[in-house]
């Protein structure tokens, strides 16, 4: 292997045109930024943008995507004219055939684009299954069809958590086709993605029949049934949520196309699976984060005073900074362009540098207590109520079993309910006397109400989190990306760093994660350390 010449990413990008989908997402923007910043002389980029909020694709790209704090500095440096020269924005929608690009457009693109990087995807954990299918299954099929008609290769971004309940060590060598988390081994062929997709679509049609087409919104009971269907299909095969179920189906579509098993010509592809993508380590600047669907609630709960953690101490939390993921994707893109790629790349950190839950929770807890001490200016009513309800922020974090945690939460809810009803009674009595000062009591019940909402939020969040942090211990093998870097030139290795082993997790969580979340997500929530639902 070492005899082969080193690959130069800058050389590859100078020679080939690339098409990026999902580029306006959290990860997509960082990929775009890295490409613009580190490889200013790249040949050409085609950018798929969906028109939205009354803006055309082009308007949206220049006014919204490039205006993001992650990109504005780079854009300023390069200048808009240069960008218009290098980047073509296409109005596209992955839910349609050829991604909604008209035949003329396809003709123009054909033969020019060598690689499609598909970062698009819906990341809600439990959406109505048809929505999840639209972007994670139909979208993949359409991108794939486009790649075939353009003669391009495909880099598909998936997620490590397609492992579902098959926890433990996740090997990159495990075949993608026919995988489902409860699979008994390589001889088990009971899962056929095509049958599953057909069945699920049939059920969707059955449920939505008589409720109009895609254009109109569905009544809530129908979408509830669609949510339940996704949950049920996922759980049936062993995926922890609809998102990872649909993502795995998407992967299998790509892998089948790669093997030429879907009737079309074989396709060159690479699947990149990041773990939980979190705030930037270095690029575009430390702490950049957007969306915050994954670890942000964990941070907010810890800082908001959650003390009883139903987690196993020695489970590692698989978090990976977004800029590392973006860099790795560009490296895989270069390898794919040179035809020296592997089918699967997992981008995770725990196999070299695990961060155990115990360490993380204590870290967050120390930070929470430090802040409480520094604050000291909360409402008296709130502080007293917290004492009464047993959630005073000065206490230390504890590790409890899920049953204990549930019992504690239930007791807390009961206590809060009792306090609330007492306050309401007192307030009514007070108002009947006609004396002034009823507002004071009103503030008290508002505080109690806020506390109970917070408790509910925690309940929901923990339920969403349980599969990751409680039942399943994952180690995602990330061997392929390491050997990929061994075949890159020194200059590219510096331009696109992948160094999870050198991350200092303490500093990352305090300075990048917490500060990033405070700065870029929910500023209002951070102000009072409560999290609005």
């Amino acid at each position: 292997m070492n005899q082969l010449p080193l690959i130069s990413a800058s050389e590859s990008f100078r020679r080939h045109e690339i098409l990026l989908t999902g580029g306006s997402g959290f990860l997509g923007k960082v990929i775009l930024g890295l490409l613009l910043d580190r490889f200013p002389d790249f040949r050409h980029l085609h950018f798929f943008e969906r028109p939205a909020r009354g803006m055309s694709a082009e308007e949206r790209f220049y006014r919204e995507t490039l205006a993001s704090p992650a990109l504005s500095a780079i854009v300023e440096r390069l200048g808009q004219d240069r960008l218009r020269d290098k980047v073509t924005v296409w109005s596209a929608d992955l839910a349609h055939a050829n991604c909604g690009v008209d035949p003329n457009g396809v003709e123009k693109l054909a033969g020019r684009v060598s690689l499609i990087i598909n970062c698009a995807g819906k990341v809600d954990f439990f959406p109505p299954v048809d929505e999840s299918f639209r972007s994670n299954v139909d979208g993949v099929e359409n991108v794939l069809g486009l790649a075939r008609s353009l003669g391009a290769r495909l880099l598909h971004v998936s997620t490590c958590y397609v492992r579902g309940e098959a926890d433990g060590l996740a090997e990159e060598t495990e075949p993608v086709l026919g995988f489902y988390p409860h699979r008994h081994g390589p001889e088990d062929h009971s899962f056929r993605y095509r049958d599953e997709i057909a069945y699920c679509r049939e059920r969707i049609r059955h449920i939505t029949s008589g409720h109009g087409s895609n254009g109109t919104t569905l009544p809530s009971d129908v979408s509830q049934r669609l949510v339940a269907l996704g949950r049920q299909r996922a759980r049936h095969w062993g995926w922890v949520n609809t998102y990872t179920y649909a993502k795995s189906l998407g992967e299998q579509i790509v892998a089948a196309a790669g093997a030429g098993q879907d009737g079309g010509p074989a396709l060159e592809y690479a699947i990149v699976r990041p773990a939980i993508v979190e705030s930037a380590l270095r690029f575009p600047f430390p702490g950049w984060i957007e969306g915050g669907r994954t670890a942000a609630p964990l941070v907010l709960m810890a800082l908001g005073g959650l003390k009883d953690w139903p987690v196993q101490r020695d489970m590692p939390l698989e978090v990976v900074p977004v800029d590392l993921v973006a860099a790795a994707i560009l490296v895989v893109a270069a390898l794919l362009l040179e035809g020296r790629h592997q089918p699967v790349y997992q981008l995770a950190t725990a196999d070299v540098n695990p961060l155990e839950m115990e360490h993380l929770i204590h870290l967050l807890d120390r930070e929470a207590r430090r802040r409480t001490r520094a604050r000291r200016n909360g409402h008296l009513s709130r502080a007293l109520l917290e004492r009464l309800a047993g959630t005073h922020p000065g206490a230390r974090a504890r590790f409890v079993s899920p049953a204990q945690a549930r019992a504690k939460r239930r007791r807390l809810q009961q206590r809060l309910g009792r306090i609330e009803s007492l306050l309401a009674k007192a307030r009514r009595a007070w108002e009947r006397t006609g004396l002034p000062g009823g507002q004071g009591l009103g503030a008290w019940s508002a505080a109690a109400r806020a506390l109970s909402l917070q408790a509910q939020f925690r309940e929901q969040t923990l339920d969403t989190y349980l599969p990751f942090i409680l039942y399943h211990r994952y180690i995602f093998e990330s061997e392929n990306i390491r050997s990929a870097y061994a075949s890159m030139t020194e200059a590219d290795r510096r331009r696109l760093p992948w160094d999870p082993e050198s991350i200092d997790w303490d500093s990352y969580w305090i300075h990048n994660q917490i500060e990033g979340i405070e700065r870029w997500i929910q500023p209002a929530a951070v102000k009072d350390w409560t999290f609005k639902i």
Partner: protein
Amino acid sequence: MSSAVQPAVEPASLEAQFLELVRDLLRELGSHRAAEALTLHSSFERDLGLGSLERVELLVRTEVRFQVRLPDEIAQQAETPAEWLRGLREGGQAQQGAQRYRIVQPARPAPPAPAGARSWVDVLRHHAEVEPDRVQIHLLEGDGGEDITYSQLLTRASEVAGGLLARGLRRDETVAIMLPTCSDFFYSFFGVMLAGGIAVPIYPPARPDRIEEYVRRQMSILRNAEVRFLISFAEVRAVSRIMRAGIPTLKDVTTAGALRELGVQASVSQRRGPAKPSETAFIQYTSGSTGDPKGVVLSHANVLANVRGIGWAVQFRSTDVVVSWLPLYHDMGLIGSWLFSVYFAAPITILSPLAFLSRPERWLWALHDSRGTLCPAPNFAYELCARKIRDESLQGLDLSAWRVAINAGEAVLPDTLARFAERFRPFGFRPESYVPCYGLAESSVALTFPPINRPPLIDRIRRDEFEREGRAVPAAPDEPNVLRFVANGTPLPGHEVRLLDEDGHPVGERVQGRIFFRGLSKTAGYYRNLPATAAVTTEDGWMDTGDLGYWAEGELFVTGRRKDCIIKSGRNIIPQEVEAAAGEAQGVRRGCIAAFGTVDPETGTERLVVVAETRATDSSERRRIEADIVQRIDAVLGIPPDRVELVPPQSIPKTSSGKIRRSEVRSLYERGKLEARTRPPWVQVTRLWARHFRSWVKLGAKTWASRLRHLGLSAMSLVIAGFCGVMARLVPGREGSARWARAGARWLLRLQGWQVTMRTANPVGGRRQAVFFANRSHRLDPVLLVAVLPSPVLLADGFAVNAAGVRTRFLLRPLLVRPAAQAQSPPGGTLRERIRAALGRGCSVVVTSEAPAGTPPELSRFRLDALHAAISTSSPMIPLRIEATSASRFIVAVGDPIEPVKCGQVPVTELRERLRRSIAGLGNGRP
């Protein structure tokens, strides 16, 4: 409708007429003496020798004679003519048109089967979520019925599960279900599974007058199964104290209703994790076997594989409807009918065996009403329908939808097939519907299936060659002395069948051999009965069925059971033949004859003994019967039996499904105890009390002793783990701590009562450091490995150590590969660096598989870091396979080391594949 109608005759003459009816029947059955002795208070069974089938006949005749319709129970429960008459007076109803329970056709075809389900709980949850309101069971009771949908089944089963959990049922404890066919059975069965227990369906007492034998027989099963709870009907609670005395593990005898109530109240939301396919789903006690009870342990994977196989064999269609009257404690009723329908979401119509026996036409009408397409039944059911149903009750019957008529569970007789097909052809029955197949409880239920839509294939072979040499030579069309066997088809997918001769060599085409099988549905063995398991399993995974058969034109023909086979003067005699011949004799109770061989030391061969039940007591009559039997057997076999023994009715023990227990008859015969009589119930209960009083008293003492012992053991292991753990931390050098930890681990194993055997081709652990790669088999693997590996080792995986519990964690923590001293990033270095450092210092390292719990050893997963470390220090990689042969016995097999230097050019993932293959290869008994 339920208004009692007085038969239009005087009470006195009613009595007389009824007795005359019974007398006629007895005379027809050849029991003249009994007919004369008949009084109102003779016992049907003891004095008159009327078995359940004869009483069905009597029921039919009574109804015709008096123009009434009687409740079914009367045929099985009335003890004397007087009781029968009371039933006739009180419960007799005017004969009405056949009012049957209408069954609504399912509107939509069945949804796809849950192909990915890993357990039966998954299957039920799947269907309850996909189509909660789909009716699963139509339960027919009398003339009414009850529909059970998937969601009802799940909800009520969850309530039972809640009740069991609230009563303290723990994972993998057994719960016996002793219920007749009723809705509670279904709830209890899934309830036990949902609660994480193991269901043990056993057969319910049919008759109150058989308490002693019944309880004794069940007790040995319940003791063997170590049941914690018995779910039954309320009456059984009366004998629960006796049972508790005899069964030390039994906590309570309860009912499904009580459990459900408790489940609703307690609302225990304690749901266990999903069951793994390899976990035991339930234990099926075999009906046909002799001697000690043998509980066939069936895992979820076994039963799922079998049901999927049957679905393939019968080409299951989404519009299929199953009909069954088979008892639910029996494999064919439980798996072959009910669970099959649960899996494929086919509606099933279930009636009780009692309902079928008393009026066989009910079964056919149920098929008609539900447009049943698929129905399994044993041979005698077809015979009964062909012979015992009156033409009037068949008017309008339509069996044309019936496409799969499975005939299994006992020998399939060509004559029966012909008779049934002949009789029911006018009603739309087609002989192509017959599916005669072969199976046994050890292979869940089914093993071979013939192709469907083919009339049964019947092989006529010459008797002489077959009996002398075991060769099945096709007979000429006009040959008189022939044997006929029905083709049983080919093995289900995923199963293999082979026939071996006495020396263990495969036999050729058309030669009789012993049937061996293996495959996905094969049981792991008999529950807590290692000798019995070992007796029927071979080292390479085959199981001896004990049955005989031959191959012809690619299909299996089953010829008989080997353990019953009689070998006289070098000639194999099949007992069924002898019994059938003797059954023709006048005055013998048909079906109540046992033929067997006993070894005669004087001649060195077996003596053929025939035991037959007869009502005759008169000595000249008995002489006549004996002579008749001898003559008839001689006519068929060409040899007379050596001995004919006549015994009173009910002396020959039978299994729950009515098969003769020949070996038991033999042992009774050899001990001279054939003529045991049943005693009155109160005597039986008293005797039971007396027998179990002492053990009942001992029970309390024993519980306390075991508690104390347990306490002592855990205290000791705590002290040892503590002491060795402290020493391991105190002594300098890793070698020293490894030695202390190993000493501690060995003590822990000893206290646990574990035995670990090491199997190795070449001695492990010279002076050179190595990396050991082991699969995970148990929580305590790290302890086990540290204790048995000859050289002191370090451990790579902190998670495995932590998972093993506090004591182990304290003892083994010092052995974890420690962070290297020099500054590195991440702090302490990556796993690769740590292992490399340990190897560099000359310590061996154990790496355990990081696959999820329950993954088979051959699918173990290892960190590439460990392989990289071994390669960079050129340390050999040694595969280990840990296997548990019982709860406390383990085998550690050591494979050939893989030298990293030799394969330096090979990618590391290929090396890992080699390790995996090597571990897989270690499983086949190879060192």
